[in-house]
């Protein structure tokens, strides 16, 4: 799909197309924005998000790189410091491990250390459920959750995908943008015609409920919403908080929800130990302890790599039933 810079009328797009539109519109709006990555040029990227972009913006704004994640992330940092707005694509989020050092030691710390502004975005297609196995399904957000200086976002809808990517590109800091591969072509929505952003740092209550708060992000938002529908039938009213931004954490929205429901479930696809759910649970146990009326439950993948074979991966990924069971337990608490 080749997008024009500003869509003329309301139109339905997939999550993937929303990402593509955000890139296209930002490139048209701001000539400092340019793209780097493997196979993003004539090929349009492994997921075809930049298809047609090189024709439209030229070889120097849609740059195929050698196979070297550390090298091109480092290059993005340098270009960003010179006033550009690079957006780099990891072919799969999993390969971000190769650029870990540049991200955590250089990009994250430059502003703190000597005031250099590093406005750049790393797009990281992440997550399982796509038969990718241990190296094409990872949720690496936990690795970066712990490196002051980075912002992390993870949209769950086409609307948020577009708005958060635009916000990330306009942000003066390094932002890792986790886009969930499972959602690419599974979600569609009609987006506004006018330019909009989804502000970084704001969670959103995706479903208002009274009884139990599920705090989640990415593909798991939809699992939570499904569970909410099932639970509604038995009179349990789930509130679904979509973090959208992982760092900085929107404590206000989370706390407000849990103050209302007194019950909290952390839900993520990432491994349980050391996941983002742990931090949110810890924040609640520290700052909202008195409002809690039951244990803080966590639903997450077990502490293993993502297995390949279908029965293994199905077992590994959190399921609607897990959310239902946890909510029932808390509701009865």
């Amino acid at each position, binding site marked *: 799909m080749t997008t024009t810079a500003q869509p003329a009328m309301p139109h339905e797009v997939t999550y993937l197309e929303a990402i593509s539109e955000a890139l296209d519109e930002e490139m048209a709006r701001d000539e400092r924005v340019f793209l780097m990555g*493997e*196979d993003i*040029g*004539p*090929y349009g990227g*492994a997921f075809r998000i930049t298809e047609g972009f090189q024709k439209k913006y030229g070889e120097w704004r849609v740059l*195929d790189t*050698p*196979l*070297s994640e*550390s*090298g091109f992330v480092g290059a993005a940092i340098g270009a960003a410091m010179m006033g550009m707005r690079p957006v780099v694509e990891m*072919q*799969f989020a*999993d*390969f971000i*491990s*190769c650029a870990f050092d540049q991200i955590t030691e250089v990009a994250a710390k430059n502003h703190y250390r000597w005031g250099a502004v590093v406005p750049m975005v790393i797009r990281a297609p992440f997550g399982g459920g796509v*038969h*990718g*196995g*241990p*190296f*094409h399904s990872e949720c690496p957000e936990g690795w970066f959750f712990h490196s002051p200086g980075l912002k992390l976002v993870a949209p769950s809808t086409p609307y948020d995908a577009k708005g958060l990517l635009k916000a990330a590109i306009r942000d003066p800091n390094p932002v890792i943008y986790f886009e969930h591969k499972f959602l690419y072509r599974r979600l569609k929505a009609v987006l506004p015609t006018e330019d909009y952003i989804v502000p970084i740092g704001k969670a959103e209550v995706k479903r208002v409920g009274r009884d139990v708060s599920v705090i989640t992000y990415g593909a798991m938002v939809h699992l939570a919403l499904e569970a909410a529908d099932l639970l509604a039938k038995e009179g349990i009213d789930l509130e679904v908080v979509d973090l959208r931004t992982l760092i900085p954490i929107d404590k206000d929205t989370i706390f407000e929800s849990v103050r209302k429901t007194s019950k909290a479930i952390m839900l993520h696809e990432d491994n349980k130990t050391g996941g983002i759910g742990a931090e949110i649970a810890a924040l609640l146990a520290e700052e909202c302890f008195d409002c809690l009326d039951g244990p803080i439950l966590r639903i997450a993948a*077990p*502490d*293993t*790599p993502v*297995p*390949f*074979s*279908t*029965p*293994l*991966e*199905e*077992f*590994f990924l959190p399921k609607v039933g897990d959310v239902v069971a946890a909510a029932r337990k808390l509701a009865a608490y």
Partner: protein
Amino acid sequence: MDVAEMVNDIKRADLLQMYYYLRLTRTLEDRITALYRQGRIMGGVYTSNGMEAIAVGYASALERDDIIAPYHRDMGAFLIRGITPGEVIAQYLGKRTCPTKGKDGNVHMGDLKRGVIGFVSHLADNLPVATGAALAFKIRGESRVVVTNTGDGGTSRGDFHEALNFAAVRKLPVVFFCNNNQYAYSTPLHLQMAIRDVVERAKAYGMPGEIVDGNDMAAVYMAAQRAIRRARAGEGPTFIECKTMRMHGHSEHDSAKYVPSELLEEWKKRDPILKAEQLLTRLGYADEIVFREVGERVKKEVEAGLEFAEQSPLPKGPEALEGVFATDDEVKP
């Protein structure tokens, strides 16, 4: 050095066996491709179509106790080390009978008992690992050798550099093959590196390098033999660039429109199986009848393998939890 003459030194049986493995590779991978097109395989399918001679050539030059660390276009090497067609298909189908028991997919097969270090998606990651295996042999004074392979794209990664440098400094018994098939996914060689021959890279390490016709199993075999002999004699590592061409898409979902069709046509004429048949015919080692027999044999073996794989059980979900940590009884105290 006249390859045509030196080939007389290779035993007839060895050449015939290599030919057999070329055919087995081709037939097996074609079968897997067909399964993929029928939607019976989850995940990606990467084949060595048109490049079979590289893995077959190097793996044939090894002794039983040697080790390989293959990459994703080395099916022939897996087969020569004793991984059966049935296990390969089982791996693609995520069955419990494959070397990873369904934990990992496609060419990510490893089995130390058969001297195979499992492939990691992250390209070039296994080059330092191969170097380390060679280091173990050197420390213990064993005369074992490690052979590893990488694509042209993989040579752009930092781990390539760090591995070759260390191997050269310590004169480790490791041979670095490079499958230069002129593309890394959609990225042509000239966007990957500013040199025409990947072998130029070897100079940076003070490492001897050579170029061979990657479509000529005998040439690859002889180059491997020379390098392995050097390594075994304590003379250190060698870099061998195999010129070849990727004849399919990067993976089976890639139509590879970015490859000029003339290039493919030209390389079609140099098909490694064709070349092998010409050689065997010229040497009087085999004829059409033999070729047909081998064709029938490998077809039967692949079909038997498919049957084995299809009848193999899938792993059960909870097996996903097994094996994160090794236990004491898996190692000598």
